[in-house]
C-alpha cells in the first residue's frame, strides 16, 4: 500500500485536512473519507458525468482527478450548493420541473449547470444542450432538465446575484 500523505483543501467552504494515498481518486476521497456520498459513480471511464464537482469553480470529473491534486483547492460538491438554509436556483429548478427522476445523475447535472450559469447567466437552448452534453441521464430524455435550467435562469435573474457554492455564500 502506498504511503498516505496529508491533503489540505477547502470542501464546501470548510477547511479539511486528511490523509490520502497518492493514487486515491477525488471521487473515493469525497465519498469514503469525507462521507460526501452525493457525488456518484456511474461508470468507470469518465463518460457519465455523475461524479462532477467544482474545483476552484471549474466543473471537473472527480473520477478522473487525483485527490492529492486538490491541495489548496476549493472543492464544491452537490452538498455545498446553495447558501446556508437556501437552495441554489438550479436545485429549485430541478425540484419544480422534475429534472430529477431517479436522481442518480442529478448531482453531476447540478454542478455542470451551476458552472454554466456562472459563465453564461442567460444561455440559449443550444448552449444548454452543449454544456450538458458532458452528462448522461437515462430517465428524463433531457426535456425536463432543460425546463429545470430555464427555471433557474429566470430565478437567477429575479434574485440578488449571490454566487452559489462559494465560501462567500455561506
Amino acid at each position, binding site marked *: 500500500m502506498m504511503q498516505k500523505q496529508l491533503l489540505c483543501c477547502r470542501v464546501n467552504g470548510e477547511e479539511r485536512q486528511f490523509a490520502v494515498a497518492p493514487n486515491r481518486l477525488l471521487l473515493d476521497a469525497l465519498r469514503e473519507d469525507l462521507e460526501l456520498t452525493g457525488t456518484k459513480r456511474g461508470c468507470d471511464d469518465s463518460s457519465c458525468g455523475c461524479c462532477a464537482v467544482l474545483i476552484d469553480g471549474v466543473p471537473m470529473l472527480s473520477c478522473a482527478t487525483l485527490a492529492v491534486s486538490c491541495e489548496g483547492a476549493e472543492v464544491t460538491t452537490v452538498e455545498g450548493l446553495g447558501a446556508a438554509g437556501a437552495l441554489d436556483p438550479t436545485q429549485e429548478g430541478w425540484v419544480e420541473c422534475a429534472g*430529477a427522476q431517479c436522481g442518480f445523475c442529478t448531482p453531476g447535472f447540478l454542478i455542470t449547470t451551476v458552472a454554466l450559469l456562472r459563465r453564461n447567466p442567460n444561455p440559449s437552448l443550444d448552449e444548454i444542450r452543449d454544456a450538458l452534453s458532458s452528462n448522461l441521464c437515462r430517465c428524463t430524455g433531457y*426535456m425536463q432538465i432543460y425546463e429545470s435550467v430555464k427555471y433557474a435562469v429566470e430565478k437567477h435573474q429575479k434574485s440578488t446575484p449571490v454566487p452559489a457554492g462559494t465560501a462567500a455564500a455561506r
Partner: protein
Amino acid sequence: MSAADHNTATIGKPMPMTDARTKILGLGKYADDLHVPGMLTGRILHSPHAHARIVSIDTSRAAALPGVQAIATGQDAPTPYGILPIGHDECVFAVDKVRYVGDNVAAVAATSAEIAEQALDLIRVEYEPLQPWVDPEESMKAESDWIHGSRPHNIEKEYHHSFGDPEAGFCKADFVTERRYFAGEVNHAAMEPHSTLAIWEPDDRLMVYSSTQVPYYLHRTISEVCAMPMNRIRVIKPLIGSGFGGKSEVIPIEIAASVLAKKTKRPVKITYTREEVFYAHRGRPRTIVDLKMGITHGGKITAVQARVVQDGGAYCGFGPVTVLYSGALIGAIYDVPAVRFDGYRVLTNKPACGAMRGHGTVNVRFAFESMMDELAQKASLDPADVRRTNLLKAPCVTVNGLRVTSYGLPECIEKVVDRSDWSKKKGKLPRGKGIGIACSHYVSGAANPIIRSNMPHTTVNIKVDRDAAVTVYSGASDIGQGSDTMQVQIVAEVLGVRPERVKLISADTELTPIDLGSYSSRVTFMVGNACIDAAKKIREQIFAAVAKKFGCSPSELVSADETIYKRDDTRMRVTFDEAVVMAIEFHGALVSQGSYAPPEDARGGKFKGAGVGPSPSYSYGAQVAEVTVDPETGHVRVDNITAAHDCGKALNPLAVEGQVIGSVYMGFGQAMQEEMVWNGARLMNPSLLEYRIPTTLENPQIECMIVESNDPEGPFGAKEAGEGSLAATIPAIANAIYDAIGVRLDTVPFSREAVLEGLRKNAGVTPKAKAREGNGSARAVNAAPCSNNGESQK
C-alpha cells in the same frame, strides 16, 4: 373511484416528487452510499470462457492473503434460482460449468476493495472449454453440448398460437407483405450500477439493502438459496438509480453479498463496475421477426403472422414471459381478426436477457408498424388513415382474449397528426426530409402474478394516530418513476388533506406489506387502487365519529381542505386534526388495510401461455417523428418527436410527461445508436463510452401530449405511463426515413451503411458493401391466388 366523484385537490395537478429535495441536496442514500462499521468489500470472479466445464477451483492462495475474510464458490450456495418458477436454472456461482463470458465463478470478501481484487487474481480455476453457441438460429440446431442439459437443442421455450383464421385472412387480403426484421440487443444502462449491502445481525438475522425493483422476490430467493426462513431476512430498498427492468430479477451480487455476509457474520457490500452491469444484463434480446401481414384495398388488416426468435443468453430469467409478450400484444392494439404466432426463446452463451422497458413488445411493434406503413404505401393510403381504419371498438375483447376497458388511441392519433401538421407534410417534404407515424401500447400491470396465487398483488396499510399524521406503509418500489409521490397524492386526495401530512414508508419487508414490485408498469394501477381502498377505510372511521357528533349520516359528510364538513351545511365542520381525535376516542388508533387483485375476467384465456398479456387495462400511444437524412453520408438526424399517450388519467402530469418523454428517449437510443456488439461470445462494448446512450446533443426535441381515457377500473381513471410509448418511437423514425429517402430499414439500430445501401439499391447501382443481415429481404405481392376467398372468415 371515478374521476367524476368530485373536483380533485391534488390529483391531476403537477406535483414535484416527494423525494426531490433529498436528491437535489445530495443527501439521499442509494445502496452504494451506505456504509456500516466493520463493513467488508466483496468482488466477483467472472468466467473468461463462454462455455466451459469447471474442472477445479483452488482458492487456497487467495484465502491466505491477509485481509481476505471469506471466499465463496458454487459449493457454498448450490441451490438454483430464477425469477420464474419454471426457470430455476442459475446458481449464484457456477457449480459445474460456466455459460457466458462474465458468468460468476467465485466471490471474495475482504477488508478493502484492493485486497479483494488481489485475491481474485490468486484464485486458480481450471476450465475445459466446450462448444459455445452464439447465434440463436445455429443454437436451435445444436445436437450436443447443450447449454442446459434439461433444454434440448438450446430452446428455452417455444409457443405456437393461432387466433381467428389466419389462412382465410391472408386469402381475403388485397395486399400481402412478408419481411424479416432484426433488432440488436440493448441494455437498460440505468445510471446507478447495481449494489447490495448485506448485514449479518447478531441474532442470526440477515438485513439486505439492495438496488432492486422487486424486494419481495429478492426476499424469497435469498431465503431459498441461503436456506433461511423469510422471517429471519429483511430486505430494504433504498433510493434506486433507476431500473428499466434491469433490477427486476434477482441479480447475482444480491445473493453473493448475502452468502458472504452469512459466511463472515459481517456486513458485506458489493457494487458492480459498469462492465459487470453489462454481464448481469437482463436487457432486451437480439430479436429476429419474420412478419407477414395482409390488408384490403381499404386498409383493413385481415391477418398477421409472426415468427419471433429471441437470442436469450445463457439463463432463463424472464425469457418465456418476454417471448410470450412479443406474441400476446401483436393483435391487441388494433382490430386484427386473425393472428398466428410462433415464438422461440433460445439459449446462447451470452449474458442472460430479461425484461426491459416495453418488455417483449418493442421489437415486434417495430416490425408491425413498419409493415403497416409499407402496406399503406402499396395500397396508396395515408398511413395515419390505415391506423384509423383498424381501431378497436372498445370496450371489447381482442382476438386473443385480452379485455380492453378504455381506449384512447383514436385521440392519440388525432393529436399527433394535428400537432405535426401531418397532412401538409406526409409525402410532401423535400427529398431528405421525412415524417413518419407509429402507434404502441402496453399493459398496466400483469393480471397474473409470476408465482400463481389468488393472493392480492399488493397491500397497503395506513396508520393515523393522535398526532394526526397519516402514515402509509407500502411495499411498492419507487425506482425514480415517482410511485412514492403517486401514493401520497392518492391518500391525500381521498382523505382531503394536504400531501405534506402524508408520510410514506415504502419497500421494507419488515415494515411494509407485500407488493410484487416495480415491473410491467403495474404500480400506479394496482398500488394506486390499494391506496384508495385503504384511505377510504380510514375515511369511513373518521366519518363515523364525526357523524355521531353531528347527529347525521356519514354519507352526508365530505373531507376536503383539511376539514370534515356536512355537504349541505358547511358550517358544520371540524378540522382533520379534531376529527382524528374524535375517531380515536370512538375506535382506538386508526389503522386500515387496502389491497388490489385484478378482476377474474381480466386474467385471460386458458391455453398454454395465456397468462402473459392479460392486464386490467392497457395504455396507448401514437407518435410522429420528423427526420433529416443526408444522402451523401447516410446520416439520419431525428429533428423532433411528437408523442401522445393515453394514460387514462394523469394523476401527476409532471410525472407522466417525464415518463413518456423518457420512454421516447430510450426508443430513440435503440433506434439510432444503441447496440451491444459481439465478437463471437465476447461483448465488445461493455462501457458507457462505447455503448452510446444518447446525450443532449443527439437527442431530438420531444413533445408529450397527454390523452385521458378515464379507465373505469383505474385509480381515478389512471393507467400506465412509463413504458407504452417506447415501442412507437423506433417505427415512427423508420417510417420517417422512408418518407425522406424511399428506403425501408429493417435492422435496428438504423445505420448509415444501411441508409446508403438502400439509396444505392433504389438508384439501381450494384451495392459495393454487403448490406447488414436481412436488408432488402422483403417480398411484397398482390395476394396470391387462393381457393378460399375468405368466406370462412365470416
